[in-house]
């Protein structure tokens, strides 16, 4: 037998915390035990309000002997007509009344890839981690191939990724009751591979086409990769809030970039992370033409004006680092 009225106690974000069905009105609300809905909110009165039918046939909530009363849209009201979308606040409790004939929203299409859960993404993630760790180790090591070193490298990366994904899985469990550990591991591993590929690609772009921009601001590109990874982790935790997470990660990334620029400017006086590009690649990859010595020297000549301007600048004595000459100089034994 279905009920006619449903009083919904809402959480701050609008989710329903509790739904109490009723066959008929009035419904009395308050802290006293003779009410239909007993509230545990100390900011409500013993007999706080009543939901009833008016003479005109509408449904309304009316305040009884309460100190805090009923608040609707930030205004205290003696009574308020209730429809399916009206929520009112009593003390710290927000309630809404819905009737049986309420039309619910359309069914959402399920975008969650349910096959890609559990073991398959977990194993794929581990394979990606192994690939990335081996490649990075191969690239940065010279000389003989020591298989044990590869294994230890892979193990190190894998363990740190397992911890990272484990933390995300726990957070997911907190919100949705499932761990989705495999998913998280796959996301983390994909991020690793993406970072590695980007580092190669940016070095290539900088080296092949003289686009030093890509290595000069490499920390910012790394930040973007990390932000993308965070986004996917968050979406995995709460798939419904895609937009919210998107905005959050963009804000985080912009904030991190800003901080890194400020930090770099404070430490070095320039916005770029490095003084000059040091990434070199095999000469065969060079695409853009080399410039002549004359052109290079013209550019050097152009720096003079800037240096002379800096030379003229008075610098704040508090800013000075005592003895911070660029000389790695012979320390003086006076």
């Amino acid at each position, binding site marked *: 037998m279905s009920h006619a009225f449903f009083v919904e106690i809402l959480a701050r974000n609008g989710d329903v915390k509790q739904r109490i069905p009723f066959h008929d009105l009035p419904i009395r609300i308050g802290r006293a035990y003779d009410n239909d809905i007993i509230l545990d909110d100390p900011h409500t009165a013993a007999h706080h309000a009543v939901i009833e039918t008016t003479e005109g046939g509408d449904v309304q909530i009316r305040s009884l002997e309460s100190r805090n009363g009923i608040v609707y849209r930030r205004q205290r009201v003696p009574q308020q007509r209730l429809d399916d979308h009206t929520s009112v606040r009593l003390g710290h409790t927000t309630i809404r009344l819905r009737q049986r004939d309420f039309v619910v929203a359309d069914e959402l299409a399920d975008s969650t890839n349910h096959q890609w859960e559990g073991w398959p993404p977990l194993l794929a993630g581990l394979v990606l981690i192994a690939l990335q760790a081996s490649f990075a180790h191969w690239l940065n090591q010279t000389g003989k191939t020591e298989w044990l070193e590869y294994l230890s490298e892979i193990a190190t990366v894998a363990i740190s990724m397992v911890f990272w994904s484990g933390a995300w899985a726990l957070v997911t469990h907190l919100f949705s009751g499932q761990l989705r550990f495999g998913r998280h591991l796959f996301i983390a591993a994909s991020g690793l591979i993406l970072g590695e590929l980007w580092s190669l690609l940016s070095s290539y772009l900088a080296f092949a086409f003289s686009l030093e921009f890509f290595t000069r601001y490499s920390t910012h590109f790394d930040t973007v990769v990390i932000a993308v990874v965070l986004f996917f982790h968050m979406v995995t935790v709460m798939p419904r809030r895609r937009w919210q997470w998107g905005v959050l990660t963009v804000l985080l990334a912009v904030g991190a970039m800003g901080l890194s620029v400020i930090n770099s400017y404070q430490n070095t006086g320039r916005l770029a992370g490095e003084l000059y590009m040091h990434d070199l690649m095999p000469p065969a990859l060079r695409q853009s033409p080399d410039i002549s010595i004359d052109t*290079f020297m013209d550019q050097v000549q152009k720096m003079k004006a800037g240096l002379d301007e800096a030379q003229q600048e008075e*610098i704040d004595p508090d800013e000075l680092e005592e003895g911070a000459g660029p000389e790695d100089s012979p320390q003086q034994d006076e």
Partner: protein
Amino acid sequence: MLSTLCRRSARAVRWMVLIACATAVLPLQAQTATEKIAPPSSSAQRLYASAKKDLLQLRVLLRNGRSQSTTGSAFLLGEGNLAVTNYHVISQIALEPETYIGEYVDTDGKKGAVELIALDVLRDLAIVRVDRTGTGSFQLPDELPVLEQGEDLYSLGNPLDLGFAISEGTYNGISRRGFSDHLMFTGPLNPGMSGGPNITAAGDIAGVNVSHRRDGELVSFLVPARYLQQLVTLAQGQATPPADFKPIIGEQLLDYQQVMMDHLLSEPLTHKTLGPYQIPVRESEQLRCWGSSEDHTQENYTTDSIYCGMESVVFISGNLQTGRVSFDHQLISSKKDNPLRFSRLVSDSFSHQIWSSHRSEEVTAQQCTEEFVANDHLPMRAVLCASAYRKFAGLYNFTLLTITTDDPLMSVKSLYELRGISYDNGMAITRQLLNAVTRATDEAATAGETTGDKTTGSAAE
């Protein structure tokens, strides 16, 4: 034997220790007596007795609190009120007269004020005026006596602020490792003796105590007396000293760098061979080159290095030494590595070669130009960074970093540092250096091999 004691590190090595005041204590050696004229002790006794009236200790004090910052020695010339010392003893008074003040103490313990009159940064000399006159023990005749190698010399001063002392040694010719000559004095010089006189057995001024080599035993240096004459003439003609010495120092540095650059560019740069590459060096009395080779067999690559650097610098202040040139070349090669992996190895060695600070009191932050360039023979990556001297307009530090990009398994990385030069000179030498790296045809690889080490000290006069 010099070479076995020298460190051949590519980094700048501290060769000379200016001996202004005390920190390091070097072992003092007893002198072996090989004199013909008189037993050493009596000679030194006689000389000290006649010189002590005109011998001074100089102290640089903080105006605020009057605690001493540096101590050195000085001596009164003739019967006048001018005293000679080293520039590095009184550099703080020259650069920061608002913070530092000088005072002298004579052998009787009497103190008095010191006024800076003239200085010569390159020769490390200065003239100060004091409120007493000399007795004429130290004369500076127009015709200086000729020194013979092996001759006895005596240095006077106040080592380590312990008390006035005289030390004996021998004259061993002229060292031309800097762009101004030094006399080699084989005898002990200790911090605190800087600026003190060095005299012959006859009591004539041979030079002024200035520095010693930390990596040697009793290898000490004197500023020759002949450099003094010019400065004394200038000081005597100067009734009132200049208000600000910084422009004078700046001018002297500009003159000096011109001498240095004329020397560097006087003839085409010489070439040395590193693998198949020809790299530019300038080997001379002032610029010494050292080579080393390392075979990283385990890691599958080898490095060969040639480092050329000046062993002397111009001391301006504790934070700033300048007028120095160094060339550092390194060939990294691998026989059978993967080119991508090799490029990573090369990248590592190419990184962090140039350092910049925007908070230095002495120089501005570096500004850099970086490009892939090609000369007539070779493509390379070139980075040029320059910074300007804040206190001396017209002087710059140039750092040129290049690495060849013609071979997938071999690269020569070169780091050239030129400190305290004019922009035009920096440009000129950078252009020459960029054009000078070439690759020999493979069969001629070892033909132009090095001239080897030249013998160390130059012959005595």
